[in-house]
Every structure is written in structure tokens, then in C-alpha cells.
């Protein structure tokens, strides 16, 4: 009787057949790349969303259309473009980024920025204009009014960051292309992430191992979600 993959993966969790440090190194590469990419993306996206939300200028519709289109960028295409950019002949070739974590961060930044910007922008424009007017009328500067709007939009912005993180950490195509899914001779991950490891294990027929890694990935995403939602509640003293 063939062993059910679920049972098999439970056995693996107990036995942990991985080389010591292997899973930990994959998790840390995944988190390192995704967290840094999403942090950079957030730092870039929120000011852009504030500027777009607070100002009207010719071509604003076009900018928003480009951002919305960016949400649908196929990740393998982004990976390919970043691969060309960081390859020896590419514009960033001199930085020697090919098959490094930095290249993976770059491609995840490109993938995470459109959803974070678009969802933040929707949250910011969704804040009642009266609230912005009130901040100004009570003696606030433009910066004060922007801070009030950001605070009112904090749940939407938290959702935006989560969406960006979700896209980054669950992404396979581009990190495989620009990162190369590499481990060192000691079996410790250099550019192997949870997703690329799962893809590799599954292709080799190691379904149990793949499922354990999948469970770890799922648990990580849930944990980060919980932290961000909790974070969104800070500053509200009910």
C-alpha cells in the first residue's frame, strides 16, 4: 500500500531527515530576501501613494494605470528582465549580482511595489476628505494632514504591506531565475528559498519533504500576518 503523502510528511516532521541547519538556512534566506524587499518597497510605495493621493496633475491617470498593470506583472518576466539587468552584459553587470540574494531582493522589490502602492493609494484616497480638511483647519501643516490621513488609512496600508509580502515570499519564478536555487557544498542554502526548495523536492519526487517545507512556509505567512495585524492596532487606545 502506497504511503499517503500526508502521513509521510508527518513522519518526516518527527524524524527531520534534513541535514542540520538546512531548513533553517532556507527559511532565513526566504525571510531575509522577502522582508528586505518588502521593507524597501514600503519605503518607496507609501510616499508615492501619498503624493498621488494628495495631488492632481496631468498624467496621474496614466501613472495609476501603470501601477495597476504592475500588479499583474508575470513574475517570470520580471525575473527575466532582472536577469538581463544583472548579467555580465547588463547595465548592472559590473555589480556582480547574478545568483545573489541582492538580485533576488531586486526582483522581489519590482514585484511587491505595484500592489503595495496601489492598495495604499486606494486606502489613502478612501479616507474622508473632511478629515484632511479638519487637520488643516485645526492648524495642521500639509505634513500633519498627510500623517493624519496615513493614520486613518493604517489598516489599508497594513493590508497593502501584507499583500506585497505575500507576493514576495510565495513567489517562485523570478527568484529561481535570478537566484539560481543554490546551496553550498555543505548543503546550506545560499539562494535557495522555501518556494524554490519545494519546487525542487517535488520535482525529485520527495513529496513528503516538499509538504513539510510547504507547512513551514504557510506557518511563516500566518505568523507575519498576525504580527502586522497586531501592529495595525497599535496607536489606537480604545
Amino acid at each position, binding site marked *: 500500500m502506497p504511503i499517503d503523502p500526508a502521513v509521510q510528511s508527518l513522519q518526516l516532521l518527527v524524524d527531520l531527515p534534513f541535514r542540520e541547519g538546512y531548513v533553517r538556512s532556507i527559511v532565513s534566506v526566504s525571510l531575509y530576501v522577502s522582508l528586505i524587499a518588502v521593507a524597501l518597497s514600503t519605503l518607496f510605495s507609501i510616499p508615492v501613494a501619498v503624493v498621488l493621493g494628495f495631488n492632481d496633475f496631468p498624467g496621474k491617470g496614466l501613472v495609476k494605470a501603470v501601477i495597476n498593470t504592475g500588479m499583474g506583472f508575470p513574475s517570470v518576466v520580471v525575473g527575466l528582465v532582472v536577469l538581463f539587468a544583472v548579467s555580465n552584459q547588463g547595465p548592472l553587470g559590473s555589480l556582480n549580482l547574478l545568483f545573489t540574494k541582492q538580485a533576488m531582493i531586486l526582483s522581489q522589490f519590482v514585484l511587491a511595489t505595484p500592489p503595495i502602492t496601489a492598495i495604499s493609494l486606494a486606502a489613502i484616497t478612501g479616507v*474622508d476628505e*473632511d*478629515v484632511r*480638511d*479638519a*487637520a*488643516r*483647519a*485645526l*492648524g*495642521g*501643516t500639509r505634513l*500633519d494632514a498627510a500623517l*493624519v490621513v496615513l*493614520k*486613518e488609512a493604517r489598516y489599508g496600508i497594513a493590508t497593502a504591506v501584507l499583500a506585497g509580502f505575500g507576493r514576495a515570499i510565495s513567489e517562485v519564478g523570478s527568484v529561481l531565475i535570478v537566484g539560481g536555487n543554490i546551496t553550498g557544498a555543505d548543503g546550506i542554502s545560499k539562494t535557495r528559498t522555501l518556494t524554490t526548495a519545494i519546487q525542487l523536492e517535488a520535482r525529485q519526487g520527495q513529496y513528503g519533504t516538499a509538504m513539510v517545507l510547504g507547512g513551514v512556509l504557510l506557518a511563516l505567512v500566518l505568523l507575519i500576518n498576525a504580527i502586522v495585524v497586531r501592529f495595525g492596532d497599535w496607536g*489606537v*487606545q*480604545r
Partner: protein
Amino acid sequence: MLRATAVSRSYGETVVFENLSIDVEPGEVVAVIGPSGIGKTTLLRTLALSLEPDEGTVSFDGTDAWEVDDPDRLALRRRIGMVFQAASLFDAPVARNVEYGLRVRRSWPERIRAELRSLVAPSGTADAVRDALDIVGLDDKRAQHVESLSAGEAQRVSFARAVAYDPDVLLLDEPTSDLDPRNTAVIEDAIAEARDRRIGVVVATHDMYQAERVADRVAVLLDGGVTEVGPTERVFDDPRDPRTRRFIDGELVY
């Protein structure tokens, strides 16, 4: 004190008002009455220095507010309190809303220090905040989140928020149009309290009975301009402009 002289304002082709003049002195309540949609809100925003008039001047104690540079105009704006038709409260506890005006007047290092301190040890409510909430009878609600307030209470918090930083002028845009009689009475008492504190109050309203109750002077806004300004009693009993007379008669019958 705060004076608009011969101001005009249009949105595109639509003229809201032309050649309009109005002023308010300390300790005086001026009611701007007129039908809905006539431009009372635009006039109040012009007085609040948040909207630049197309023509004419707005001056505060003799200083033309649109001739000075931005920091000076901000300083003038900060002597004005404003209450909107909708309460427009921030998603935070009552006291946090009321202290907003005080908070933005502090320097950034002070503000950051105060925020950090309040994270470690929640400090007591500032006297100015309690005093402002006292005017509208809501001091006991200062720790509540604004979500738990009724519409009337929310508007009273909005009033407290505008007087907490002790402005010289208070601009009220239809402050009671969505309220029940009890909350309306609280706001009207608070207007009287503001006058006693030597604040100049301009209240836009379409309720002529309210204007009669609270105002020392009335400005009647009709057809893109003020048709008549004068002491409340005189304007209601003996309007000099035939348009004012028609408006008042029509409303009073209704």
C-alpha cells in the same frame, strides 16, 4: 479683527459670490444666513484662510493674509477654530481628538518626546482639553473612542476640538443642521460661552430662528452676495433690502 473685504470667488464659470464684505470682532457672534447651496461654506473657508479669494482681501488685525508668506499665514490660520457640518473626527479617543490642535502647535522634538512618554506612562489629560470638553458637557467621555459617540456627541467633540487651543475666531459651518434639539441647545450654549470668552464667532446657518437666538449681527447671503448686514433684531424686524425681506418672510411663513 477678521475681515473680508470685497471678496469674490468662482468655481470655473460659476460665480459663488462677488464683492462680498463681512467682519467679526472679539466677543461677537455673526450669523451668516441664506438658503442651502448659496455659498456659505465657501465663504467660511475663505474666512478660514484655506481658500484664497479670486478678488478682494481677507485681513486679520489689519494684516492682509494673502500678502504674507506661508509661515505667517499659518500663524494667522492657527488663531482660527473651525467646526464643519459633519463632525469629521479622527479615529481615536475623544481626548486625543480634542488635543489635536494643541499637538500640532508644538515643535517636532516636543511632539515626539510627548508621544514616547505616553507610550511608557499614559499621562493625564491637559487642562485645556478638559476645559474644552467641559464647555460641551462631555468631560466624562474623554477616554472613550469616538466610534461610541452619538452624532450629537460627536459634533460637540468637534466643537471642543476647535476651542481647545483658545482661538480668537471660531467659524461654524451649519454646526447643528444634523442634530436633535437637545444637542443643538448644547452647541448654542457653547457659542454663548465662546462669546463670553471674547472669541469672535461666525456661524453659517439656514435656520433663521437659530440666528435670532445666538447672533448679535446677521449677514444675509443671497444671489452671490451679502444683501444686508446689521444687528439681528433690526434685520429680522425691518429688513432694508427687498430681497432680504422676501427671504425672511418666505422662511418665517414656512
